[in-house]
């Protein structure tokens, strides 16, 4: 590992939560605008997290604290591995550590709200994990490698070759962003039903840790999206901007749905789109 990539990793680890927080702030403003409200200041997510960090600690058991920390570590590690341009599939598996520990943290308390939230979170992971693997395999089909260094070096925007797989990736992004219609495990809006699901039992500094880890995750998923347009910075920017705007629009125009619907719909549509895109690729190569 040379000096350049070490610096790159450090920069990524410092700026990812900043970018994630800003994104959350902009997101809230735009959502408010969509709903005819004024909305909080752009920096509100940072104010929230700083305030949470200063609060008293309160937990049900030690495992919650342990799990929150592991979640943060694994999210940071997967982003660092991305910055080092290593293997996509490996990064995905490292990210799973955090997701699983988040569920364990929620399951470790006997509260019915967080228990149900954890079960739903597992279903959400079950929904997006195969899709992400399929997307990576699709990228491998085009570029011949799972290594980000080789994928970045590919000379055409992958988006133009795998447009449908990009759509599949945005399903995973929607679930990871906890946006409607897939916000079933930890949503603000479902509070009458499950309070805040997996996050119910977290408060104060530990909730702040989860929030920061979440920002890392979002930046990582967006970074994976950016691999679809690596040939020019402008193309990459527009791809990401349009994707995120579309996420906000979808969030605002769709209702929250059940896990059964989510699982069957996302798998059916996702797998069909993937197979269709693969078939197109095969057809072209003849």
């Amino acid at each position: 590992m040379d000096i350049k990539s070490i610096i790159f990793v450090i920069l990524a680890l410092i700026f990812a939560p900043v970018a994630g927080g800003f994104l959350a702030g902009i997101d809230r403003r735009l959502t408010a605008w969509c709903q005819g409200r004024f909305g909080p200041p752009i920096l509100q997510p940072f104010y929230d997290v700083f305030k949470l960090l200063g609060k008293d600690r309160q937990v049900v058991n030690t495992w919650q604290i342990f799990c929150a920390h592991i979640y943060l570590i694994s999210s940071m590690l997967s982003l660092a591995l991305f910055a080092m341009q290593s293997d996509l599939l490996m990064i995905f598996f490292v990210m799973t550590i955090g997701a699983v520990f988040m569920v364990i943290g929620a399951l470790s308390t006997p509260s019915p709200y967080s228990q149900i939230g954890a079960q739903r979170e597992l279903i959400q992971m079950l929904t997006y994990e195969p899709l992400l693997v399929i997307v990576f395999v699709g990228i491998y089909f085009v570029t011949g490698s799972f290594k980000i260094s080789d994928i970045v070096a590919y000379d055409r925007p992958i988006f133009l070759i795998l447009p449908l797989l990009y759509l599949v990736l945005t399903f995973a992004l929607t679930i990871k962003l906890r946006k409607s219609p897939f916000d079933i495990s930890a949503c603000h809006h479902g509070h009458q039903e499950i309070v805040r699901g997996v996050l119910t039992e977290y408060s104060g500094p530990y909730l702040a840790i989860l929030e920061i880890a979440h920002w890392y995750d979002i930046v990582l998923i967006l970074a994976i999206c950016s691999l679809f347009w690596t040939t020019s910075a402008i193309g990459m920017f527009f791809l990401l901007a349009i994707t995120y705007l579309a996420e906000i629009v979808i969030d605002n125009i769709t209702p929250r749905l059940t896990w059964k619907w989510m699982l069957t719909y996302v798998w059916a549509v996702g797998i069909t789109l993937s197979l269709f895109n693969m078939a197109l690729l095969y057809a072209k190569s003849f």
Partner: protein
Amino acid sequence: MVSQMVWVSIVLPFLAAIGCLIDSKPLRSILVVGTGVAVSLASLLLVQGQAFSLNPETIFGIPADGLIAVLDFALLFVILGISYQLKNKLIAVLTVLQIIPLAFLELFLHGAENTAPSIYGDQLSMIMSLIISIIGSLICIYGLSYMEEHEHHLHVEKSRQGRFFFFMVLFLGAMNGLVFANNLLWLYFFWEVTTLCSFMLIKHDGTDIAVANATRALWMNMLGGVAFILGLVILRAKGLPLALQELISTPGVASLALLPVGLLCFAGFTKSAQVPFQSWLCGAMVAPTPVSALLHSSTMVKAGVYLVIRLAPAFAGTLFSHYVALFGAFTFLTTALLAISQSNGKKILAYSTISNLGMIIACAGINTPAAMAAAILLIVFHAISKGLMFLCVGTIEQRIGSRDIEDMRGLIRIMPRTAMIAVIGMVTMFLPPFGALLSKWMAVEASARLPLVVLMLAIGSAFTMVFWGRWLGLVMTSVMGEAQEPEEQSPLVRVPLVILAAAAIVVSFVAPGLYSAMVLPVLERFYSTDLYIAAQGVFINNIGMFAVFPIFLVMVLGVAWAARASSGKRVHQRAYSTPYVAGLQDPANPQRIGFKGPLGQWANFTTSNYYMDAWIGEGRISGWINLISSGILIILLTGVL
């Protein structure tokens, strides 16, 4: 030196097993522990050396080949006797179907003179022998204390432990023989010994259900035995050598031998309980836990995948190979799905075992160097972690009286040590940077050119995460209260658990070295391109890389940091509160979570996992799974005709 070590690993357990029949507890303990230490040392010494081949002319002064033939017939007639005792015509027919071809083969077919050595050991055999000798012995040692408790619990009048340990120890010898045998007739003999032992061990408790399940295991494995012996007859009839190494490494033989190789693979599928034969392994869960652990982690089922992996170079690049990949991936997917529908801990372990074996078979079918590396590594890591999990469930069951995972809620407060060890077992089964996940990563990357296979692996691995993740969480479910009491345990239980838990972590850490030293030499014989290189703790090939050491380093630091942050010193006792239940706690005792019902009756909150029984219950989907898998199996076998 090598020949003595092989002798110790194969013949010593056979002799010690007979000693175990003497009903004396101290003698039995000495024999079991002594044999375990001896075979473990022998396997460790064998690893020091290179690949070897031996050709013992005589055993105890009797011509070796003749002795094996006589024992073969003796064994088959014993099974025939059992079928008479069970009044089971199916088993009788399947046994006769083996006796006749065997007699035909031994008496009438004299193919080319068998010049190949009878015993051959390369790094693959050595890895298998290490697993069998070390993990298998630990399980047997654990069994000493477990069976004591088990018989006490069942109020058995006259101890039947002699018989029990006879078959347990015999199993180790048979498995070692199986992995070192090069002569296929020898391999067949050891194969049938494991079938008989597993039958005897499954029906050990003698209950109706145990006998029924043991009978099912017997006929399914005998079906595999019929395929095995038919394969041998065809090989001999075609004038091909009845020797493993000659079969896979002589150029030109492979294309001639596809039908017998297909039959041998079929035998491997039955022994590894691939769908539609999964029911024998699930049924075997009625046996005492050490039996489940021995049969389903380190021995028995591993014999099947070992044979398929051994034969894989013989069918590389054929359509048959693709179908094997598809078949294995289908098993992986469907049994992982079935595992989600289960709340019985041992059933979950059983389905997860079949699922992992399916992935190994799929890797053998993908048949690229990366896939073969994944298959061999997965055998190792699965054996360690699954052996550990079985022993943990056994220990937990003897304490809490249930093997249902819903009853394991809050286990961390009742049995803190065993629960922590179980957590290590589960984490090493499905999370990075541990070996099982490393193999899964290799398998997915290797299968990337086979769309259907990679799709099934991707979905199946998400299922895997669901059932392990929630079990892990349940074990932790607790509210802080008074300090936890570490539970008391016999060292015969504690030591195997701790050794296996440590091994699960350490062997994962040294995976790159293990690969370079033990797996690479096996692969280099058959494949020249696209091999993984393990340098400085990182696996690299032309399409991917997995950084074992860096991830390990960061996660170890991370776990230390997380443990420090959650330690008693950092978190004040005041910080602990009770969970949020909208203010419905019992005001007198806030730890009690529930609500007052309509008549002032107290009701506790209860939550449970989603088992989705209405969707994916065993009874609901097993039929379909068996139907589809039988279809794939028939296509697979007609393909080689």
